[in-house]
């Protein structure tokens, strides 16, 4: 039993932190989250040059073949700086979905280009009723011969506006078991009939889109995984993406806590630093408890999904149930600890609070993942 990072992993973290602090300071976060694209293509290329895109992809596809735990280290560091970039959508969710569900030929076609930073791929899952389980998939793909026609609307698709490809989750067959009858299609996002509308959310560091499909024709060669049977493999990819997202949330929460510690030491009221008052000190101590607990469960979940442990799904859901509450609570208290200045646009705390809130619901909120945990205990 050894529950800590290796020396190489500590080095990876240190170099990622150094890089992101240099390349992505808070004013850059603000600059890029005001821009229509929402990210810096230059920085994206630098990240590709560092090998980040292919960090956990097998060497056959141009990746470095590191473990999923290594990816969560990067995600934590990206969360610290609130990096506004399609890394979560295109790598943690998109590339890992391709890896889990695609044939070798499909992977060969797409993954090396993803690794080189030449293309991005998003995943269109959620629909109007907002549920992350198979019952939420109502969109139809009707198959005739070796072609399918997609009709329907996907919501809250992360970074679709800058993606080159889109993986669409659709129902190819009805029936009583909601898990069966689901298929995945990977499409060029410029295909006729696909329309992408950016949504305006409180968190401009992560962009969401509505994507509508109107009589979009696609060859069955674009199908990922088995026909009608894609859900179980997709679920594995979703578990990984969920844990990657949790890691990002841990990094952001830890940074928000550190901002509070600094402020508590330097802000003086009544002739004393406010961090010496127990009402403030105890709030910050509770942030530390939240963050350390989150690390324990997220690092465990990262290890479990990496090795496909039998409890991997439960671990992922426990991590997300915990982090969804943790990040929002820590950043809400972060605003409180900073007082009036924490409420201003110029202070960075609101950027973390907004990221916390958007991450809380992404891939399922606490209530959702606690119910899934309950089902997997099983209760």
């Amino acid at each position, binding site marked *: 039993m050894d*529950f*800590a990072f290796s020396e190489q992993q500590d080095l990876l973290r240190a170099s990622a932190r150094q890089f992101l602090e240099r390349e992505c300071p808070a004013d850059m976060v603000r600059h890029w989250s005001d821009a229509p694209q929402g990210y810096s293509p230059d920085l994206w290329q630098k990240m590709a040059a560092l090998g980040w895109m292919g960090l956990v992809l097998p060497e056959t596809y141009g990746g470095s073949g590191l473990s999923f735990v290594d990816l969560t280290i990067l995600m934590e560091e990206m969360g610290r700086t609130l990096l506004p970039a399609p890394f979560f959508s295109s790598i943690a969710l998109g590339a890992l979905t391709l890896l889990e569900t695609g044939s070798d030929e499909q992977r060969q076609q797409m993954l090396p280009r993803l690794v080189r930073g030449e293309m991005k791929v998003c995943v269109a899952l959620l629909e109007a009723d907002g549920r992350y389980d198979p019952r939420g998939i109502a969109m139809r793909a009707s198959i005739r011969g070796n072609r399918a026609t997609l009709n329907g609307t996907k919501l809250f698709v992360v970074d679709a506006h800058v993606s080159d490809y889109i993986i669409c989750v659709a129902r190819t067959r009805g029936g009583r078991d909601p898990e069966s009858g689901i298929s995945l299609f990977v499409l060029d996002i410029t295909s006729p009939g696909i329309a992408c509308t950016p949504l305006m959310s409180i968190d401009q560091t992560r962009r969401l889109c509505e994507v509508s499909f109107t009589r979009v024709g696609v060859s069955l060669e674009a199908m990922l995984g088995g026909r009608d049977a894609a859900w179980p493999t997709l679920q594995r990819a979703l578990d990984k993406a969920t844990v990657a997202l949790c890691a990002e949330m841990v990094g952001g929460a830890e940074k928000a806590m550190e901002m509070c510690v600094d402020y508590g030491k330097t802000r003086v009221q009544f002739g004393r630093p406010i961090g010496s008052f127990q009402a403030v000190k105890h709030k910050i*101590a509770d942030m530390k408890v939240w963050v350390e607990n989150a690390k324990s469960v997220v690092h465990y979940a990262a*290890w479990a999904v990496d090795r496909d442990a039998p409890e991997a799904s439960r671990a992922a859901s426990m991590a997300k*149930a915990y982090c969804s509450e943790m990040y929002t609570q820590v950043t809400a208290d972060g605003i409180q600890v900073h007082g009036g200045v924490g409420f201003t646009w110029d202070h960075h705390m609101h950027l973390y609070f907004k990221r916390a809130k958007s991450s809380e619901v992404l891939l399922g909120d606490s209530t959702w993942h*606690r119910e899934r945990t309950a089902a997997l*205990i099983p209760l």
Partner: protein
Amino acid sequence: MDLTLTPAEEKFRDECHAWLDAHAPREWHDSAFRESLTPASEIAFLKSWQHTLYDGGWVGLTWPREYGGRGTTFMEQVIFNQEMARAKAPPLINVLGIIIAGPTIMVHGTEEQKRRYLPKILNAEEIWCQGFSEPNSGSDLASLATRARLDGDEFVVNGQKIWNSYGHMAQQCLVLARTDPSLPKHKGITALIVDMQSPGVTVKPLRQITGDAEFNEVFFDNVRVPQANLVGEINDGWNVAITILMFERLNTASLLEIQTKIALDELIDTARRTLRNGRPATEDPLIRQKLAQIYTDVEILRLSTYRSITRFQRGQRPGPEGSIDKLFWSETAQRLFAVAMEILGPKGQLVKGSKGTVDSGRWSYQFLRSRADTIAGGTSEILRNIIGERVLGLPKG
């Protein structure tokens, strides 16, 4: 990072498993047997069980071999704790000796003290208690007023201790007493080993919220203690105490986490058998939310223990970060028993001996008992100060 057991750890687990299966007294699970025990015969039973464990080489696993231990890793101690829980084996009775007094004597004691006390801690020949808290010195432990005055080659101890566990059965007590009131409060304290059979020692049970008396008040009235019973330097008792508390946290964390896990498993069992609105409580969406949350929190306790063990095995001494685990454990345990009461509805309030109890009233008992969790071993308020000041570096108030 690898959360699986190494082959050596697996082998150790199998050894524990086999030994406990062969030796753990089965009558402990028999409620008729448990109810037939008097306080005195229960003590004798548990002492004899610890002696059996000692003969098997299972007590003081992490202690160095020269002091009668096995020099194992903390992970092996945790594995043993887990196997004890799995086998539903009776607890170690001399837990304060093993967790607090022994390690303190190993670090601060004289050679003579090590030879005299350590073996009898392990085989439960001498039960230990601790005399730290006083009626007017709880969280502010360093303000303690029990005096120890040197008279020739003996200390004369006067004062009152409180919240003392095991005092009614203990042979030895590790006492903190003030030897120099002219020094600042942290500086004039000394740690002493007091023989509980000495003239002038009076133990009075303290009845608590549950109606039981787990704790005692201990009165020292001109108790004469040989100077040879001094632990560490005179007036250096605060440092001695701090080492003890750090040890206590790391060791206790694993035992508490396992206890809580067992309680959760039993609560889930009970919830399956308890109807709410005509259906098992485990099918009620709100109860499912709460049980899943506690399940997650209990998993976090286990994982945090593993992180602490890894830090320790990589050479870091246990420090103030142990406060995080204690704080979270105590609040988790209280939530667990509060949810148990909620699941049971009106029946939850019934106590042992009443008609109509669930699980013989254990949930109402533990619900009440768990109020101590956020007080004993450092109140949550003190722990938050420690986290704020000593872990995060916030200024003192």
